[in-house]
C-alpha cells in the first residue's frame, strides 16, 4: 500500500482511538417502573436568530426523569403535539395520552451571547401551570441548564429537591500490574462531560466531596505510601493533609467542611481519627486491634459511622464524633462495609456480603425494630455505594467481564442504568452534593 493511502488510514485510526477515550459513561436501562409518574417532555422550540443549540434539552430532561425510576417520560415518538407556550397547550391531548405532567420550553438568544431557555410545566389533571421560568447559558452549559429544569420539575412533583444537576467523582484504572495507570475523574451525574482531576501510575482511591462541592479529598500512593490529598477542582491546586506512617485512608468531610474523618494506622492498626483542617490537629476516636475504617458522618455532624471487624467480620458501628464507645449499627448479614449515609440520617447504604456474593443493601432505620434491609443491586461483586444528595438514587460499582463498571439505581432498586467507560476499569463512584444554582 502506498503512503498516500496509509496516511488517511492512520489518521482515521487515531481519531477512532481519541473518540473512544472521550466517550462519556454510557447509559443502559435495565428495568422498568410501572409505578413511575408519567411526564411528557415536548422538544424545546428554537426561536433565536442564530443557529439552534446542539443540545436537545428535552431529551436530557427526559433521560434524567427515566434514570430516577420515579418518573417515566413519554417516548419521543408518542409526542403528538408540540406546544411552545401555555396558550398552545391542549390538556385533552395529554390526558388522552395518560400523562400526569407536561413540560414545554423554548430557546431564544440571550442578550450578550448564549441562549435564554424559557420553560413551563403543567399539571394535566388540574389543567394548571405549576412552574415557569428562564435560565441563560452558553452552548457548553446547556446540559447543566436542562438538568436544573429537570430538578425544578422533580421538586414540583415530589416536594423534594431534584439531584440531576450534580456530579460524580470516580476512579479509573487502565492496564495490568506493574504498569497500571490510575485516574481520578469527575463527570455530570448522567456520565457526560468526564474531566480529569488527577492521573497517577500509583493507586488512587476513595474520592470524597467537600460539602460545597468545590474540593475532593482522596488517597494517592504517589509518595510510595498512602497519603490523603485535598484538591481544589477549579484550580487543580492541592495539598497533602495526612501522610503518617502506615495507612492514610478513607477521608470523609464533616457536614460543615471543617473536619476530615479518616482511617490511620500509625498506632499499629487502622483507627478512626478526626482531622481539624484549620489547626491540623487529629483526634483519635477508636482504640481497638480491629480494622476500623470507612468513616462517614451523620448529617448532624455529631456522630460517625464506620466499618470494623472487631466482632470477627466487618460490620457497621456508630461512635460520637468526640469519641466514646462505639455501638453496632448493623444486626443483619455476615459482612457489612463501606456505608453511605442518606441526608435524612435514617437510611444507610452498604456493601452486604454473603459467601462470595457482595451486593448493595439499604438499611432503613425508620421501618420497624432494628430497621429493614433491602437489596438494591443484583450483581456478585458490587461495592462502593453512594447516595445522591436527595437519596432518590444511588451510584455503585460492579464487576462485569473482569472489569469495573458503574450503575445508578433508584433508591427502591427497581430501575438501574449502567454507566460504562469504553475501556478500562471504573470504580469508587462518589455522588457530589447539590451544586450552587
Amino acid at each position, binding site marked *: 500500500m502506498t503512503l498516500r493511502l496509509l496516511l488517511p488510514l492512520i489518521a482515521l485510526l487515531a481519531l477512532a482511538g481519541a473518540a473512544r477515550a472521550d466517550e462519556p459513561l454510557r447509559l443502559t436501562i435495565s428495568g422498568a417502573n410501572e409505578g413511575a409518574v408519567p411526564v411528557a417532555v415536548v422538544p424545546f422550540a428554537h426561536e433565536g436568530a442564530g443557529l439552534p443549540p446542539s443540545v436537545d434539552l428535552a431529551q436530557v430532561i427526559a433521560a434524567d426523569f427515566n434514570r430516577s425510576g420515579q418518573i417515566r417520560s413519554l417516548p419521543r415518538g408518542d409526542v403528538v403535539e408540540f406546544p411552545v407556550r401555555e396558550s398552545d397547550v391542549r390538556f385533552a391531548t395529554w390526558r388522552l395520552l395518560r400523562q400526569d405532567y407536561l413540560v414545554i420550553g423554548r430557546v431564544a438568544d440571550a442578550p450578550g451571547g448564549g441562549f435564554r431557555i424559557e420553560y413551563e410545566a403543567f399539571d394535566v389533571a388540574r389543567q394548571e401551570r405549576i412552574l415557569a421560568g428562564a435560565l441563560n447559558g452558553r452552548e457548553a452549559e446547556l446540559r447543566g441548564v436542562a438538568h436544573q429544569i429537570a430538578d425544578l420539575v422533580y421538586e414540583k412533583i415530589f416536594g423534594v429537591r431534584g439531584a440531576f444537576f450534580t456530579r460524580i467523582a470516580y476512579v479509573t484504572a487502565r492496564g495490568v500490574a506493574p504498569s497500571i495507570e490510575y485516574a481520578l475523574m469527575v463527570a455530570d451525574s448522567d456520565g457526560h462531560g468526564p474531566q480529569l482531576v488527577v492521573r497517577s501510575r500509583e493507586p488512587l482511591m476513595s474520592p470524597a466531596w467537600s460539602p460545597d462541592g468545590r474540593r475532593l479529598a482522596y488517597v494517592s*500512593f504517589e509518595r510510595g505510601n498512602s497519603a490523603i490529598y485535598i484538591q481544589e477542582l477549579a484550580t487543580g491546586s492541592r495539598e497533602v493533609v495526612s501522610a503518617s506512617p502506615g495507612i492514610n485512608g478513607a477521608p470523609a468531610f464533616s457536614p460543615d467542611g471543617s473536619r476530615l474523618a479518616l482511617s490511620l494506622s500509625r498506632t499499629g492498626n487502622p483507627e478512626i481519627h478526626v482531622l481539624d483542617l484549620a489547626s491540623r490537629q487529629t483526634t483519635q476516636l477508636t482504640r481497638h486491634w480491629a480494622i476500623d*475504617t470507612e468513616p462517614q458522618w451523620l448529617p448532624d455532624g455529631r456522630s460517625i459511622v464506620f466499618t470494623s471487624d472487631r466482632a470477627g467480620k466487618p460490620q457497621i458501628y456508630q461512635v460520637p464524633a468526640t469519641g466514646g464507645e462505639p455501638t453496632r449499627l448493623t444486626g443483619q448479614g455476615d459482612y457489612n462495609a463501606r456505608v453511605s449515609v442518606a441526608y435524612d440520617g435514617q437510611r444507610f447504604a452498604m456493601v452486604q456480603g454473603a459467601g462470595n456474593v457482595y451486593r448493595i443493601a439499604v438499611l432503613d432505620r425508620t421501618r420497624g425494630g432494628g430497621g429493614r434491609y433491602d437489596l438494591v443491586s443484583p450483581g456478585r461483586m458490587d461495592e462502593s455505594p453512594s447516595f445522591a444528595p436527595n437519596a432518590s438514587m444511588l451510584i455503585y460499582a460492579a464487576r462485569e467481564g473482569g472489569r469495573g463498571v458503574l450503575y445508578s439505581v433508584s433508591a427502591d432498586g427497581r430501575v438501574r442504568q449502567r454507566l460504562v467507560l469504553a475501556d478500562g476499569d471504573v470504580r469508587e463512584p462518589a455522588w457530589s452534593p447539590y451544586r450552587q444554582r
Partner: protein
Amino acid sequence: MNVAIRISLAALLAFGLVACKKKTVRDEVEPPVDTTPPVAQTTPAGDDWSDPSALDRIPCLRQRVVYFDFDQANVRSEAQEILSCHARYLSNRSMARVTLEGHADERGSREYNLGLGERRGNAARDALTVAGASSGQLTVVSYGEERPTCTMSDESCWQQNRRVEIVYTVR
C-alpha cells in the same frame, strides 16, 4: 505557586523528617537495580549469606512472594520457610532494607482490604523479626486490592492476589 513546590512544602511542614525517611518512590514491582559497586564480586561465592548475589543465587531467597488465606493474615508454613530464609539473609547483611507490600483480593470493600493488606504485611514483618531480621530493616506498605496481578473473579486468581511481596530497596 508551583503545585509541586506547594505539595513538597506542605509535606515537609506537616511531617518533617519522617517524610524524607519514608520517601522510597517506586514505579514497578521488580526490585530496583543493584547499585552496589562491582567490588562485591571479589567476595567469595559459595554459601555466603551476606553477599547481595545470594538473592539471585539461593533458591529460597529468589522467592519474593508469600500467599495468604481468604480474609486471613496468619503466615502459612510454606510462607514461614521463605520468610525465615530472608530473615537469615537480613541478619547477615544489616545494610539490606526490605519493603513488605501487602495485598488483598477483590472481595470486600477497598479500604477494609487496605487494612487487611497491612495486617498481612505486619504478619510477614513479625515472622521476619522473630527469625532474626531487625525491625529497622523492614517497612510495610499496604496496597489493599489496588494492585492485582490478575483480574478474573475466581479463586485461582484471588489466591494470586492475596499476597505479600518482599521488595529489596537496598540489597
